[in-house]
């Protein structure tokens, strides 16, 4: 498929990630779903892109559109990759589903020179209010699951993630929060408001 025939519009959080990636670099997308980000990166940023995806529907969609994607589990399969094999390792909207998020983040920075991590912010004011008013596990457009059938087993807030990075000795190069209507905030200079108004966050990390 020619580049101009491909969709240039990707989800805004994916666009933020794509903008962090240097053209022509080597990228591993962990939990790449249907390959929307990888496809964009391969065709508009000429990256050497690879992906790991858990669901066979996602994998087959990716491979079927010519992307180099393997069926695998981010919790168990990252250890196979050699040190510093990629320029960027992306973990997009997947951290909260992992059994060992801290180990995972460390693995990302072993495999890649930089890691890009995005996740839903559990401290968003709507979720806080939902819990306060209803006394039940918050649900929203971006978090549509009941507590008993959610794949999201390790929620965190933007503050939590910043603290984790400090604890593990990870440098945050860039960090952006994204609110409901697409407004972006720089987390570093506005941690309090980002943590309150950001629905999701994107972090560019290095050792």
């Amino acid at each position: 498929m020619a580049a101009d025939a491909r969709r240039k519009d990707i989800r805004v959080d994916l666009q933020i990630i794509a903008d962090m990636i240097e053209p022509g670099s080597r990228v591993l997308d962990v939990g790449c779903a249907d390959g929307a980000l990888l496809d964009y990166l391969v065709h508009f940023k000429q990256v050497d892109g690879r992906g790991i995806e858990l669901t066979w529907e996602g994998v087959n969609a990716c491979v079927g559109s010519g992307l180099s994607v393997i069926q695998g589990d981010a919790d168990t399969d990252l250890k196979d990759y050699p040190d510093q094999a990629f320029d960027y390792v992306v973990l997009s909207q997947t951290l909260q589903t992992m059994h060992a998020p801290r180990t995972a983040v460390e693995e990302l920075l072993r495999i890649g020179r930089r890691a890009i991590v995005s996740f839903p912010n559990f401290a968003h004011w709507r979720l806080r209010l939902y819990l306060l008013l209803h006394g039940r596990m918050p649900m929203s457009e971006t978090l549509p699951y009941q507590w008993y059938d959610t794949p999201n087993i390790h929620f965190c807030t933007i503050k939590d993630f910043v603290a984790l990075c400090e604890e593990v000795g990870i440098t945050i190069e860039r960090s952006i929060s994204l609110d409901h209507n697409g407004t972006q905030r720089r987390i570093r200079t506005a941690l309090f408001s980002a943590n309150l108004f950001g629905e999701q966050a994107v972090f560019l990390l290095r050792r």
Partner: protein
Amino acid sequence: MTPTQPHIASSPNGRQLPGHRVMLGRERPLRLDCGVELADFPVAYQTYGRLNAERSNAILVCHALTGDQFVAEPHPVTGGPGWWDLMVGPGKPLDTDRFFVLCANILGGCMGTAGPREDDPATGRPWGLHFPVITIADMVRAQAMLLDHLGIEQVFMVIGGSMGGMQVLDLAATYPHRVFAAVPIAAAAHHSAQNIAFHEVGRQAIMADPDWCGGDYLSEGRHPHRGLAVARMAAHITYLSEGALHRKFGRRLQDRDVVTFGFDADFQVESYLRHQGHAFVQRFDANSYLYITRAMDYFDMAAAYGGVLADAFRDTPVRFCVISFTSDWLYPTAESRQIVHALNAVAANVSFAEIVSDSGHDAFLLDEPEFHRVLRGFINGAAEHRGLPRAAS
């Protein structure tokens, strides 16, 4: 392309075979793993589509244990459709409008390439058990010699299922710069104890047939058809799955309403297996079956690389697409996953899809739309990277 030598191959039932046949190893013999050198040996092959001017659009298909070079045309012995008719042809995943598809009968085979059924040039009599024991790596060396002969420096893709997949892995590891993309399907990087065990049952069935004559049946004018048929029947079960057998046959009876209280083929599944065995012996050579199963048993890629499979692929430039099937218990997904882990360990460019199917190991030969869709996507992606023209839409 016309054959450069006027040799004509013949099938196990004595028919002349269509396609090409070339004598290889005349100047530089093929040195086999067992130490023997094969000089001036025949390789029979078939081609579909046209080689482009740059010689960059070749797809080498590696056939499985009982396959042959007649990939996409009526079989010259059985008259049945080519074994990968669904995959190879105009507009099909291996699109012969775009690609030059090439398949050679493997070394040790019985459809025109050097093997125990062919004559030993030293004696003028069939090789029989005097044919040297060969390995998957030897088959691959012969494939590379054929590519040399055809003037193809690098194939766009090498693809194969089962033992074909083993050759794909070996070719990609041994000749990484001669392969742009590699697709091992329903394969493994080594033969498991279970696989060796099933092969041994087959070999013992052949050798227990009095008509085998210690391997010298061709000179004696006899054929161990019963032993070979039993070997095929046992193996055929391993190519299916419990689910597929149940779906196809269940406990249904064959042309009767009640069991006969005898040992006739009461059940449909019995009748089916007998038919499979009977059809197989018309087109296959018993000694070939011994040699090829042996080659598969000996296959252990990691062992050839100091026990570390990843070392077989270090710095590989090849784009891999590994495919397995959920109900394949002969080469289960776990074994494909080992290959993927090894490729990941060297950060190779690899795709890996497990296809949901209840057809067992044979799924790679069947009409599995998801499998074909995934493969089409991989081929198109690889072709784009190789700079080959796009598929006509």
